[in-house]
């Protein structure tokens, strides 16, 4: 006698998806394992590192401590939804231009937080960027380049909104 499975539908990168997992499953595992959004990365499972950040109805949230039932009916954007290898988002391009990665594991979550941040802060100072990214851990020490990349992206996004 298993738990009764409710039909939950979430919208991820523009497509509706009927969730297979149980209601209390963290969104992280649904995105990675049902939708193959592997750019959403497991780091801590308790919302402390930012590696699993996604955008839910316009807000950057950590998908590891968000149950899938809590986002039923909501619109979710993952790193795969904002750009691609062939057509990167200005933030992704800025990370490439600034070579703002060592291992790169933290980068996808940071890019999504930065995207939401830049929508409200088109002219950010370095300190504001650092503050905005303070929920993310980068263990390789690439912070300085990441801040530069976000600055560079802000500039480009102002020119071509």
């Amino acid at each position: 006698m298993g738990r009764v499975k409710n039909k939950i539908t979430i919208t991820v990168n523009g497509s509706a998806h009927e969730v297979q997992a149980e209601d209390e499953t963290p969104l992280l595992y649904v995105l990675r394992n049902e939708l193959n959004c592997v750019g959403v990365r497991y780091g801590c499972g308790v919302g402390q590192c930012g590696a699993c950040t996604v955008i839910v109805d316009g807000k950057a949230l950590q998908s590891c401590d968000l149950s899938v039932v809590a986002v039923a009916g909501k619109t979710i954007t993952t790193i795969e939804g904002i750009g691609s290898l062939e057509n990167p988002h200005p933030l992704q391009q800025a990370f490439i231009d600034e070579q703002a990665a060592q291992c790169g594991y933290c980068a996808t979550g940071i890019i999504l937080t930065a995207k939401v941040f830049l929508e409200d802060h088109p002219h950010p100072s370095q300190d504001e960027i650092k503050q905005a990214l303070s929920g993310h851990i980068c263990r390789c020490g690439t912070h300085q380049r990441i801040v530069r990349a976000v600055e560079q992206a802000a500039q480009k996004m102002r020119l071509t909104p």
Partner: protein
Amino acid sequence: MSTTLSPRPLPGSLQTNRFLNQWLSIHAEGYVTMRPGKVEIGQGILTALRQIVAEELDLDLEKIRVQTAVTALSPNEGVTSGSLSIQDSGSAFRQVAAEVRELLLSKAAAHLSESVEQLSVKNGLIRSRSGASVSYWALTDEQLLNQEATGQASPKSAEEHVVVGTAAMRMDIPAKVTGVASYVQDMSMPGMVHGRICRPPSYEAELKSVNLEPVRVMPGVISVHRDGRFLGVVAEREEQAIRAQLALTRAAQWSEVPTLPPFNPRYLLKAKAQSECISQKGQVLFSPESSVHEAEYSRQFLAHASLAPSCAIALFEKDRYTVWTHSQGIYPLRREMAVVLGVEEDQVLVHHVEGAGCYGHNGADDVALEAALLARTLPGRAVRLQWMREEEFAWEPFSSAMVAKTRATLSAQGMITHWQMDVWSHGHSSRPGRSEGSNLLASWYLEKPFKRAQTSNPPLPGGGSHRNAIPIYEFANQQINNHLVPDPPIRSSALRGLGSQTNVFAIECFMDELALQAHCDPVSFRLRHVKDERARAVIEAVALMASWQSLQPSDGVTGRGVGFARYKNGAGYMAMIAEVQLAETLQVKNIWAAVDVGQIINSDGLKNQIEGGIIQSVSFVLKEEVKYDAMRITQANWEDYPVLNFTEIPQVQIQLINRPHLPALGAGEGTQGPVAAAIANALFHLSGTRLRDMPLTRERIMAAMA
């Protein structure tokens, strides 16, 4: 008369992997495959090695594909560690590519009926002065590279370099920032299932009882496995495996005994140690004497704390194991896994797939064995196993706590006449495949457990706990003693820089303490004691960069300090100046660094490594210490083990001193010691408070100032 000739010496890892086709293949389709045995761990090594091959073969970077390391194909280059990949692998590739180019040119000369001198190469197309041409791709055949390197071909001179030394873009970053599967954590294969392990609460805990049955019937659970104290679950879905892991952990009853040392590195001073004098010059310093200056420095255990908990995928099929792992040493891992699994080495195929940055020996190897142990119970199904964050924080091997005691005397002229340093530490390596027994975690918990291999030190001159313990300053009289404490009560192994962080911290803080006694500026005091021109050059360069002012007192707001070392006494030279302020905590505002690692292969990759090393080292020094009590490692997450945050990073400025005619040296680890000392020296400059115990936390600073 026959004599046994020792093989001709060849550069780097080519010495032990002597065939050209182990390293390179040239394909008629118009590209080259290179096969490094070293692996990418976020340090950009594959990009740098590719530049070396492109340079020697006169190819565009895009013509070169990289086969990541796999035991069936790749040369055995041991472990990717010690900032040695440019030295070991880079020098091998340079020689191989130079020889391959010569082979191709001589074949082209025959083909075109020209002399080799008449030929030039551009992106794989060989042209003669008369205008005839033939490509590498047309000339290649299977047998061409099936020969030993001769060591005869001469690589290009530095003046000819057009790719080496440039800031070639990293080949892996576009995929990583667009969410393309890049890590072993991202791999998926048909029918793949998910494993998790149930850990004991402490290293030596005994399993009293566990009822596996309720876990077996949980949704999605395929198997629950017990072998001694090794408990694992496999489920169809990842979240189901995690729920089963939690249930199993709740079901297991353990008995525990306190086995951990006091929460202070000084327990090492009282422990039984293997003591060894590692350097002796002139007279031994006798004590006690009023003129002897003494100090004692220490550091707690540190964690690698990779952002991604360790992960592996294993498949067991027809008596053979295939493993995908982010291990730094696929061949040593294979050797040790074969022993524990009871099979021959050729029954284990190990593929390297990137993980997140590891900075040394973390859980990567352990999780590979654990995945294989679970896969053995489910032939034909790939098992993906990832540690949870709390497992990584409790079970990875840490970097040993250390204590260093220094003593010295000064002459009336302010010169150091006698120098002594004693270092206490556990060993800094327990990597797999290096000694008797096993170093893979799960093997110690099986019904028939494997003997725990020794935690030891790599030998000098690189060294482990004694890495950088011998100063490169020139003292007429010196004695350095290493006290290695065997059998660490807290699992220990290699972390970026090994013992050098503490040893350089001790030497460079003590240099400042002695400079103060000698009424001498710290920068001048160092220059007074070092003749090596490259050492002097980085110290002078960093002083210039930071506009260092001799004997200038602090303005009460900021303090400045210097730190210097030549990593491993034979690798890169690094000099740093730190600028700090005191608010609620110690804040590092600026770091200036002057760096000489010989010939630069990729200037931006090098800067990226140095910046990263500096920022990570600031984190080590200000914040990091492994938390434990008498029984357990007590840290489970990033609140328990905080690291440097975006709002706390210093502004880092780096000056690279290129030495294109000198060998390229490793760069990744040499930052750790100089940064540590520069920060403590800057705190002293600011506050007059000398802190000798890392980390330099608010509590320690307040206590010292009170």
